[in-house]
């Protein structure tokens, strides 16, 4: 096991050379590897000088959690153990982060819902921990299959939410996520979502920097609240006090505090723009009147559909949302200039992304929003399903 005190000005406790996020993400030479989402997460965590991680088994994130355990055994991660259930794990993560640790955990579907009370607490107490959410369906009936309905439950927790499309994006995003979440004026938790199985279990080519470099460590002295370590004034400090209990009342504090959390999420925008190279990625025909707005695997399938539609002479573009919280309103509106019809393909039955898009566009864009196609419960979304949706719409009554 490593010791944190082994760290020097230039090396972390496992002997990796400390580098800036810009160097790690944009400058360090990369070489090609072939690995799954779970495996690439190990590679990302290995390069992030992570203090602590708490794990719990649930499909499909278990392997990622095992691999972080291996990093601990190899001396890259300081603290690691299995918690008792996801509510306990997320509370343990809160304890680790409040005590000043760069902390990561992973969960999926039912685990997310079991832990739910913690997420609003995480953001309220301004910890910059990272949750890797490998989305799967939620009960009942039981499913272990990919489905991202659980993300809709996370939307108003006060956490940042990013969505990675593939294995490469998971690697780059999960590194950038620590860096953005730890900015003093942001400093709220970040949830990096990928679609379970489609990304966690799919092997793809990825470009990785060498593993002898790692991010500078987290500095709790640059946090917006004192760390719970008895080393930071004030000595008298409760994280966090009741401010609206009947024998002490300041409604204004609770209200202001809540606005502050949401403000913190919005302050991440310039940082996310830099480290993600944009909150949205637009591909396809710039002058298209049909656009797909999607995130994660659905955007990959939308790009497939775009290729097929191009063959039919139909122009489309794909607007991939990389951040969901903050919602990339300005970028989306810009990308939708000239678009008349928007399709929102999704891996869930409720269409939470369609609702998000409509809310954003209301009064600001005249395009017609079609929610769909939607698949759920582990169904795949073949490009044909998207094609059919488009052809029905533009060729009404005549079918695809």
């Amino acid at each position, binding site marked *: 096991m490593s*010791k*944190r*005190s082994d760290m020097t000005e230039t090396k972390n406790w496992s002997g990796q050379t400390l580098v800036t996020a810009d160097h790690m993400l944009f400058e360090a030479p990369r070489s090609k590897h072939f690995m799954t989402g779970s495996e690439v997460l190990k590679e990302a965590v290995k390069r992030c000088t992570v*203090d*602590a991680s*708490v794990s719990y088994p649930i499909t499909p994130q278990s392997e990622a959690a095992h691999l972080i355990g291996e990093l601990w055994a190899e001396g890259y991660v*300081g*603290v690691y*153990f299995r*918690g*008792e*259930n996801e*509510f*306990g*794990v997320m*509370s*343990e*993560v*809160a*304890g*680790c*982060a*409040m*005590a*000043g*640790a760069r*902390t990561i955990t992973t969960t999926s579907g039912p685990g997310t819902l079991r832990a739910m*009370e*913690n997420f609003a*607490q995480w953001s309220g*107490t301004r910890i910059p921990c990272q949750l890797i959410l490998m989305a799967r369906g939620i009960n009942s009936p039981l499913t272990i299959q990919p489905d991202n309905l659980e993300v809709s439950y996370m939307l108003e927790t006060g956490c940042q939410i990013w969505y990675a499309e593939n294995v490469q994006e998971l690697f780059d995003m999960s590194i950038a996520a620590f860096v953005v979440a730890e900015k003093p004026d942001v400093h709220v938790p970040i949830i990096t979502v990928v679609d379970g199985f489609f990304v966690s279990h799919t092997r793809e080519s990825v470009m990785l920097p060498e593993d002898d470099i790692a991010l500078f460590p987290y500095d709790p002295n640059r946090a917006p609240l*004192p760390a*719970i*370590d*008895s*080393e*930071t*004034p*004030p*000595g*008298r*400090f*409760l*994280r*966090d*006090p*009741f401010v609206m*209990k009947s*024998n*002490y009342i300041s409604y204004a504090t609770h209200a202001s505090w809540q606005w502050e959390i949401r403000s913190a999420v919005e302050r991440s925008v310039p940082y996310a723009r830099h480290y993600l190279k944009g909150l949205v990625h637009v591909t396809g025909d710039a002058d298209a009147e049909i656009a797909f707005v999607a995130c994660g695997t659905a955007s990959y399938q939308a790009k497939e559909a775009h290729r097929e539609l191009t063959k039919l002479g139909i122009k489309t573009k794909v607007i991939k949302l990389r951040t969901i919280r903050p919602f990339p309103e300005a970028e989306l509106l810009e990308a939708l200039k000239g678009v008349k019809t928007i399709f929102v393909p999704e891996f869930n039955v409720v269409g939470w992304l369609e609702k998000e898009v409509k809310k954003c566009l209301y009064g600001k864009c005249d395009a017609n929003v079609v929610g769909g196609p939607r698949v759920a419960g582990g169904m795949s979304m073949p490009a044909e399903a998207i094609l059919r949706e488009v052809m029905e719409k533009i060729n009404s009554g005549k079918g695809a």
Partner: protein
Amino acid sequence: MGTNIYKINPEFRDIMPKEIIDLEENATWSATTDKRGIKELPETKELLEEHSLCAGCPEAAALRYVLAALPKPEDTVIVNSTGCTSLMFPHIALHTVHSLFGNQNAVATGIKRVLDWRFPEIEKDVVVLAGDGATVDIGLDYTLQSFFRQENITTICFDNEVYANTGGQESGATPKGQVFKMAPTGKKFEKVRMWELAVTSGCHYSMNMTASAPKAVAKAVREAIFVARYLGPTFLNIYTPCILEIGLNANEGLREMKEQDKERFAAFKFVSPEAEELLAKLKEEGRL
């Protein structure tokens, strides 16, 4: 570092209120005295500034004993849960946490493990202090799991045998037959013997007691914290009756506790052989 965070910069001394100056000048820390304890309560600055509990609440007195007994307050973090105790926590002059209802031992686990990781050269104590609802009911899983995992944490339950802060509902620690809200015809099952569960679950030191004798509380707290620091989990169940919910006056809490010293809170004390050995050694060294 410890007490540096209480040292007022001289440039601001004239604008700081008395309570803060007192804290710097008259509170006791491990560096200033070998043995803190309740005997110093009248003469020194207490770590509890004020509180908003009911007049005569035994819980407030018990917290004062606990704080006076901490062996190393300047490096002690206390983790709390929702309940009457949380009304006192903002006023404790230490780093403390209130997270959710019931997750106190999970949060404390994360804090303790990271403090050991960040400060291997400093002995940092983590103490959980929560009510019976938090410890025995909603948080039972997290309490016991932290014992199973052998976390180096002291867990103190202020057992008032009722959900007092929410208006007097029956809890797992309520005695059988007692009529409270949510048990309108009387509680149907026995009081959960948490101090015994603590032993079975791996605690090295477990006690059931009332807060009637300040010195006994202070001794138990000090011993439990030392055993947790060097061996593993420890547990104290301390009766702090809710005088409001059982219909007593502000001056009747002590009598109630004394009566229960012979009843439901008749002294129970478990000390593992390793803990016995440790405590004997600490006593020899003059640390107890």
